[in-house]
C-alpha cells in the first residue's frame, strides 16, 4: 500500500534479495522468541511478563532497521521484541533478558522481562510506565541539537500510551524546540482490554496533533514490511533534513492477548481473533516473497531451519547462564558522588564577608558554569531579560552563559525533569540543573519522572546515571498558604537512587550545590526560600567551598540534649537554645543534618551517645515526616543511650493555612521548640 508523500524505496519487486533475506531472518528470529516466550513461564523458568509483538512486525522491523547505533538513540517499549532484534540484539541477548539472567545487557535481570535494551548501543532501558520515555526522547534530542550531532531519536510506544499527559508534553516540547525525534505509535487498537475509542476521539491518535507546528505526521500499515520501511525511512530523512519531529502512526494488529496476564478471549469475539491472525505481518511478508518469485519455498524453509537451530542453541545458553547474585542488590543504587579533598568534613574557617543564601546559590552556579561548559539549567520563569526566576536565584545567568545553556521551560514539570533525564543520556559529562518547579509545591506533576529517574542507575545496572541537580524553593514562613509553603522531603527521601540535601546557611548551600554539580547521579537540592535573603542565614562563603553528602554539621556542641534539624528550623533551634541556656545551666547540642539522604547516622548516634536525650525538629509535618526515620534509626541503633523519650517538633498534620494566624498555629516555631526542650530536659 502506498503512503501519500512517502518515497517508495522499498518494494517487493526491487529491493535486493539479500536485504529481503535479512528481513526474513529477523522476522523469523523475532517470531520464534515471541512464540517461545510463554513456554518459559509455563515451565516456571521465567519470562513472566511477555507482551507479544505478533502483529506489529512490519513497523518493528522498520524501526530497528532505521536505527543506527552509531548516530541514533532508540527508546523501545515493552512490546518491541522485534524492534530490538531488528536493531541488532542477538538471540542470546533476547533470552537473557526474557529469563532475567545476569548477562542480560539491559540490566542483568533487574528490570522486568520483555523490556529489551542495550544501553551500550543507545537502545535505552525504559520504564514499564508506558510512554514515559517520550520525555527522555525529547531530552536526548535536545542534547543532539545543542551539540550539533547528526542523528535521530526514535521513541516507540503503543497508541494508548498517547493518552498520558507526559506524551503530550513530549510531543509539544519536540514541536516547540524543533527536536529530531521520530515518535512511533504502534496502534493495535487496544490498551490491554480498553478499545481505542475509550482513549481519544480520533481513531488515529496521531491526528490529535495535526495542529502542532514543526511536526509531520505519517501514517503507515504496521503490518506491512514495505510500507513500514518506507514510512520510517521517509521519517528519518525528513527529521534529518528539517530538524523537526515526526509522528509515524503504524496500524497493527494484536494477534495475542496484551500480555500473559490478559485473556483477550473475554473481550474479543472469534471473528476478530480470526481476522487478526489472517493479517499476520510475517505470513504476509512470506506470501509476498513467494508470490513475486523473490524466494522459493525451499530457500525460505532453509532460513527458518537456520533460525530454529540458532534459537535452540541460544535457549541452552540461556538456561546455563548465571542468575543475578543476591549480594549485588546494593550495587548501583546511585552513582558515586564527587569527593572533596579540601573540605572532607564540609567545614571551613573563612571569615570573609557574609553572603546571603541567594547570593551563595547564584554565585556557585555561575562559578560551576564557568568551569564546566557542559552545564545547563532550565525551569519555569528562570530566564527572561532581566528576570532570573521568581526569587531571582538565577539572575544574570542567561546573560552570561547564553540561551543555549540557560533557558525557560514550559509549565510542565514532568517535561522539565523528564527532558533532564533524557539530556543526560547523550553524554555522561553533561550536568543539568533543573529548577523542578516554580515552588516545591508544584513538583508533584514531576513525581512520575522523579520516580522513574531514581530507578535508572539501578535498573540499568550502572549503565546510565542521570546527572541532575533538582533545585526546589521549599517551605513556608512567607504567608504563602497551601501551595507556596510545602516542604516535600518526607516524600522524596523514600526513594532509593537520589540524594536529598537541605541547607540552612549560605555556606552549606554553596558547598552542597557545588558537590551536586560535580557529582554523578541525582541530587535534590531543597532551598528554604524564607532564608534566601535572611540575615541569619548569611555566612562567609569560601569561593571553592564544598560540602560532601552525608556529613552533618554540629552547629553547637552540648551534653544534655541533642537536637537534630535542618532547613528553616535550624535557626529556630539555635534561637530557642540560646534562650534556654540563658536561663538554665544546661548545654544543648544542635546538629544541622544538611544532608538527609544519605543521612549522617554516625553523627546522630555519636550525639545521642553523648547526651542521652533527643529532640527532632523540622518544618514538615511530624506525622510521617522525615523525623520519623531519624527517630526510628535512633530507636533501632542507639536505644541503650537514651535517657528520655524521642520527641519531635514539626508542623501539624494539616495543610499550611494562608492567614498568618493559621500559618503560625501550624508550623513549628521557636516557642514550640523551647517548650519541647524544657519538657525533655526536665524529663
Amino acid at each position, binding site marked *: 500500500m*502506498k503512503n501519500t508523500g512517502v518515497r517508495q524505496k522499498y518494494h517487493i519487486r526491487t529491493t535486493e534479495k539479500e536485504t529481503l533475506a535479512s528481513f526474513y531472518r529477523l522476522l523469523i528470529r523475532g517470531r520464534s522468541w515471541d512464540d517461545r516466550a510463554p513456554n518459559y513461564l509455563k515451565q516456571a523458568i521465567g519470562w513472566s511478563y511477555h507482551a507479544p509483538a505478533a502483529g506489529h512486525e512490519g513497523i518493528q522491523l522498520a524501526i530497528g532497521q532505521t536505527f543506527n547505533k552509531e548516530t541514533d538513540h532508540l527508546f523501545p517499549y515493552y512490546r518491541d521484541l522485534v524492534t530490538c532484534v531488528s536493531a541488532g540484539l542477538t538471540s542470546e541477548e533476547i533470552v537473557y533478558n526474557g529469563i532475567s539472567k545476569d548477562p542480560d545487557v539491559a540490566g542483568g535481570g533487574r528490570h522486568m522481562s520483555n523490556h529489551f535494551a542495550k544501553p551500550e548501543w543507545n537502545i535505552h532501558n525504559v520504564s514499564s510506565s508506558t510512554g514515559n520515555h517520550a520525555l527522555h526522547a525529547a531530552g536526548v534530542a535536545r542534547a543532539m541539537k545543542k551539540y550539533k550531532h547528526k542523528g535521530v531519536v526514535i521513541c516507540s510506544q503503543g497508541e494508548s500510551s498517547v493518552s498520558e499527559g507526559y506524551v503530550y508534553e513530549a510531543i509539544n516540547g519536540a514541536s516547540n524546540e524543533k527536536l529530531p525525534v521520530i515518535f512511533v505509535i504502534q496502534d493495535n487498537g487496544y490498551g490491554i482490554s480498553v478499545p481505542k475509542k475509550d482513549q481519544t476521539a480520533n481513531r488515529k491518535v496521531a491526528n490529535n496533533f495535526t495542529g502542532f507546528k514543526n511536526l509531520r505526521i505519517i501514517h503507515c*500499515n504496521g503490518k506491512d514490511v514495505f510500507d513500514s520501511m518506507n514510512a520510517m525511512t521517509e521519517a528519518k530523512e525528513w527529521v534529518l533534513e528539517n530538524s523537526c519531529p515526526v509522528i509515524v502512526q503504524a496500524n497493527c494488529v494484536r494477534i495475542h492477548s496484551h500480555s500473559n496476564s490478559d485473556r483477550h478471549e473475554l473481550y474479543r469475539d472469534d471473528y476478530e481473533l480470526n481476522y487478526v491472525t*489472517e493479517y499476520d505481518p510475517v505470513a504476509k511478508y512470506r506470501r509476498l516473497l513467494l508470490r513475486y518469485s523473490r524466494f522459493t519455498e525451499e530457500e525460505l524453509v532453509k532460513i527458518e531451519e537456520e533460525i530454529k537451530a540458532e534459537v535452540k542453541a541460544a535457549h541452552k545458553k540461556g538456561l546455563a547462564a548465571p542468575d543475578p547474585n543476591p549480594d549485588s542488590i546494593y550495587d548501583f543504587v546511585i552513582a558515586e558522588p564527587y569527593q572533596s579533598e579540601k573540605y572532607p568534613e564540609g567545614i571551613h574557617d573563612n571569615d570573609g564577608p557574609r553572603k546571603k543564601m541567594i547570593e551563595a546559590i547564584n554565585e556557585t552556579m555561575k562559578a560551576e558554569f564557568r568551569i564546566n561548559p557542559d552545564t545547563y539549567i532550565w525551569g519555569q520563569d528562570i530566564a527572561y531579560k532581566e528576570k532570573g526566576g521568581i526569587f531571582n536565584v538565577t539572575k544574570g545567568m542567561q546573560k552570561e552563559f547564553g540561551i543555549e545553556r540557560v533557558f525557560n521551560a514550559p509549565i510542565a514539570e514532568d517535561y522539565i525533569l523528564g527532558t533532564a533525564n533524557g539530556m543526560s543520556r547523550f553524554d555522561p559529562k553533561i550536568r543539568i540543573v533543573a529548577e523542578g518547579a516554580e515552588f516545591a509545591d508544584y513538583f508533584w506533576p514531576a513525581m512520575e519522572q522523579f520516580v522513574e529517574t531514581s530507578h535508572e542507575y539501578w535498573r540499568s545496572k550502572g549503565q546510565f546515571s542521570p546527572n541532575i541537580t533538582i533545585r526546589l524553593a521549599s517551605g513556608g514562613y512567607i504567608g504563602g498558604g497551601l501551595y507556596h509553603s510545602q516542604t516535600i522531603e518526607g516524600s522524596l527521601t523514600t526513594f532509593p537512587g537520589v540524594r536529598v540535601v537541605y541547607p540552612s546557611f549560605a555556606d552549606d548551600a554553596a558547598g552542597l550545590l557545588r558537590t551536586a554539580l560535580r557529582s554523578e547521579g541525582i541530587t535534590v537540592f531543597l532551598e528554604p526560600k524564607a532564608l534566601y535573603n535572611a540575615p541569619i542565614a548569611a555566612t562567609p562563603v569560601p569561593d571553592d567551598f564544598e560540602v560532601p553528602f552525608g556529613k552533618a554539621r554540629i552547629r553547637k556542641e552540648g551534653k544534655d540534649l541533642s537536637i537534630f534539624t535542618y532547613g528553616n528550623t535550624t535557626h529556630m533551634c539555635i534561637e530557642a537554645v540560646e534562650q534556654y541556656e540563658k536561663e538554665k545551666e544546661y548545654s544543648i547540642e544542635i546538629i544541622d543534618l544538611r544532608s538527609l539522604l544519605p543521612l549522617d547516622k554516625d553523627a546522630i548516634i555519636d550525639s545521642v551517645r553523648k547526651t542521652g536525650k533527643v529532640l527532632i525538629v523540622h518544618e514538615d509535618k511530624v506525622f510521617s515526616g522525615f523525623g520519623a526515620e531519624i527517630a526510628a534509626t535512633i530507636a533501632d541503633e542507639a536505644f541503650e543511650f537514651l535517657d528520655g523519650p524521642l520527641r519531635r517538633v514539626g508542623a501539624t498534620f494539616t495543610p499550611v493555612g494562608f492567614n498568618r494566624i493559621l500559618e503560625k498555629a501550624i508550623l513549628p516555631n521557636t516557642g514550640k521548640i523551647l517548650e519541647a526542650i524544657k519538657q525533655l530536659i526536665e524529663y
Partner: protein
Amino acid sequence: MLVVALGEENTEKVNAETVTGDQILSFDNLIFGVPTWFDGELPNYWDEFVPELEDMTLKGKRIAVFGNGDQKNYPENFADGIGIMADLLENRGARIVGFTSAKGYDFESSKALRGDEFAGLALDFENQPRQNKERIGKWAEQLKKEFV
C-alpha cells in the same frame, strides 16, 4: 445482488483472492469489490496484488469499484479502499466509471471522494443495509450505460 442486476449472462465472477493480472487483462469492463479494512486499508488480497497491478497497463479498460465501509465506527476512513484502488487503477491508465453521489452518507472523510462523489459505489452493511438493494440496482443501471 450486483451480478443479478447486471445480468448473469453478462458477467463473470472472479475470486479476488486468487486473481491474476492476465485474468484482469482479459476483460474490457471490470468491477472491483474493495472493502475497507482497519483504519483505511486495502484487504490483504488486494494489497498483495498491488505490486503486480503497478506493472500492468490498463489503458482502454473501464473499471468500476465498489466496497463496504462503516460510516459510524470508521467515519475518518469511510470506504477508503474504493479511493485507494481507484487511484491505483487510474495510474495504470484505466478509466474509472460508476461514480456515485455522496449524498445520504454521514462520515468525516474518505479517500473515495472526488468532489461530492465517490469514485465508485460505497456500501455500508453495518449502518445502512436497507439501502443496499436500491443503491446496487441504480449502480448496475449506471454501469450498463458507462461500460462499453
